[in-house]
């Protein structure tokens, strides 16, 4: 089981296609033609956690994958998404959480919620949730009537938007898709419904988890930075991650990204998730109390930096099978790259296998002036 290569069959309503994947995974999937993964010990641990979580509220299972750079945190989160999707969970994935805080989507201040709404991001999230989970959402109906008022873009002569109790959830989502100005309200209503129902467990998977707890690039009209918990999308994700809101059944999984220099891991995340015990913490380091409150109770799940030889052999088979190696793979090549990379999956693949011109000995052909690589 451990080290076994596995192909993930994707189609247009698969979470990897509808929600997307982080950029490194996207590039790997393009090179490999389809998403492929190996079973690691961490995968088996994840499966146990998912089994534990499936009948409990999500506030009981709030996990964040931690580990060194290139250890496989995002990859394990992708495996978690696939595992839950295969078990017919309702899957909500945010593969690039920094997109909610890097000032790339419109934001407007809303006096009612006292936050900055992000209508376009909410609109796209609703669309993707419906695409991926239509089958499960069709079995659910709204438990209460939602009187969503009137969006700012709608003329005052139009009737307010009201969604009666008993409406199928796809119809609720469709109301939000009719006008992006209504999307934040409808997304909030959908999340409220998913909190109340216990028929299907819900997975909320957030990659680039640390970006939610860092300084955002949005600026308010007074030119001061807007905190992430004052933006509607990050606030929603942080409320579920902190346990303030909880799905009836399900879990919240996050994964840190160590390679995002624009949104590095903050002191608060280091402290809350107990990362890097050797990091010297000065008493003068700034801490942000609201962020610390949002981070309380999140369980760090550490991914080992290096793969075992069995796991690495499975990864080697995947790349060998896709003819990604320059020449025929052999044990010497595998062991040398495994040793060079210390078992780190990213270094093993990107800095080892894909950058290597090693392989079979050169072929000497008297008709050609120089020894040739054996490309047969």
């Amino acid at each position, binding site marked *: 089981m451990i080290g076994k290569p596995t192909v993930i069959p994707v189609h247009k309503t698969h979470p990897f296609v509808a929600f997307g994947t982080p950029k490194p995974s996207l590039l790997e999937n393009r090179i490999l033609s389809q998403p492929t993964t190996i079973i690691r010990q961490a995968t088996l641990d994840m499966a146990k956690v998912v089994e534990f979580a499936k009948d409990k509220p999500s506030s009981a299972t709030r996990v964040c994958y931690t580990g060194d750079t290139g250890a496989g945190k995002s990859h394990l989160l992708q495996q978690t998404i696939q595992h839950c999707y295969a078990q017919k969970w309702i899957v909500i994935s945010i593969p690039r959480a920094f997109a909610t805080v890097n*000032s*790339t989507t419109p*934001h*407007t201040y809303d006096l009612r919620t006292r936050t900055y709404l992000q209508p376009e991001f909410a609109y796209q999230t609703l669309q993707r949730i419906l695409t991926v989970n239509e089958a499960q959402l069709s079995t659910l109906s709204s438990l209460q009537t939602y009187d969503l008022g009137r969006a700012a873009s709608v003329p005052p002569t139009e009737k307010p938007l009201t969604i009666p109790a008993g409406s199928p959830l796809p119809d609720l989502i469709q109301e939000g898709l009719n006008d992006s100005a209504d999307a934040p309200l409808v997304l909030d209503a959908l999340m409220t419904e998913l909190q109340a129902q216990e028929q299907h467990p819900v997975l909320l998977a957030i990659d680039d988890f640390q970006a939610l707890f860092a300084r955002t690039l949005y600026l308010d009209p*007074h030119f001061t930075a807007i905190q992430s918990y004052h933006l509607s999308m990050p606030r929603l994700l942080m409320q579920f991650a902190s346990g303030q809101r909880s799905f009836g059944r399900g879990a919240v999984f996050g994964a840190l990204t160590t390679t995002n220099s624009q949104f590095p891991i903050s002191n608060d995340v280091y402290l809350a998730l107990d990362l890097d015990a050797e990091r010297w913490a000065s008493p003068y380091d700034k801490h942000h109390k609201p962020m610390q409150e949002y981070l309380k109770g999140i369980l760090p799940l550490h991914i080992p930096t290096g793969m075992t030889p069995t796991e690495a052999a499975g990864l080697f088979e995947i790349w060998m099978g896709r003819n990604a190696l320059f020449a025929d793979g052999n044990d010497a090549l595998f062991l040398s790259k495994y040793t060079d990379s210390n078992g780190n999956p990213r270094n093993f693949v990107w800095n080892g296998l894909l950058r290597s011109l090693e392989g079979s000995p050169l072929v000497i052909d008297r008709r050609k002036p120089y020894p040739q690589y054996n490309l047969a």
Partner: protein
Amino acid sequence: MVHILGIKLNDGQRARFALTEFYGVGHHVAHRLCARFQIHDQAKVGELTPFQITSLASFLSSPQTAPPLPKFPLATRYYVPPPPSTPLQKLQEEFREKKAERDAEKAKQAAKIGIQKLPPRDPLNNLKIESELKREIRDNIMHHRSIGTWRGRRHGMGLPVRGQRTRTNAKTAKKLNHMGRFNT
């Protein structure tokens, strides 16, 4: 294609960059303008709403007379918003009442201590662009000329003003430094 105060802004350009087309608006002022009107960093000019465009145009036509920006309240951790059907006018009235109470309290505290609290400075209120800015620069040069300073004489002669060499080079100053330089 958007026209603001006679300046053409291309739809495909980022708004934060396109605003630098205005004479007197650089990258920092453009960033402040975008923040003031809640235009995110990656917004293109073609994606701006009509409300944002008219707000920009009315602000840039007269920055000094723009109303002061209120400080809107932000949600606390466990804030529960009123239902969505609450009319916006009611929320605005409540906000204005609370603001008036806070301002009255602050004025009372300031009067007790005996200090006069100045309103917060907004750098954009002193913004001058296009013809107004050119007029100011022209007036400054005329002032130097009229009081007979060295700088005024150098402008009048069309030579460098800031102590550069004239034995060689000085081509730019000879081309550009003249009294009618900033005529609109």
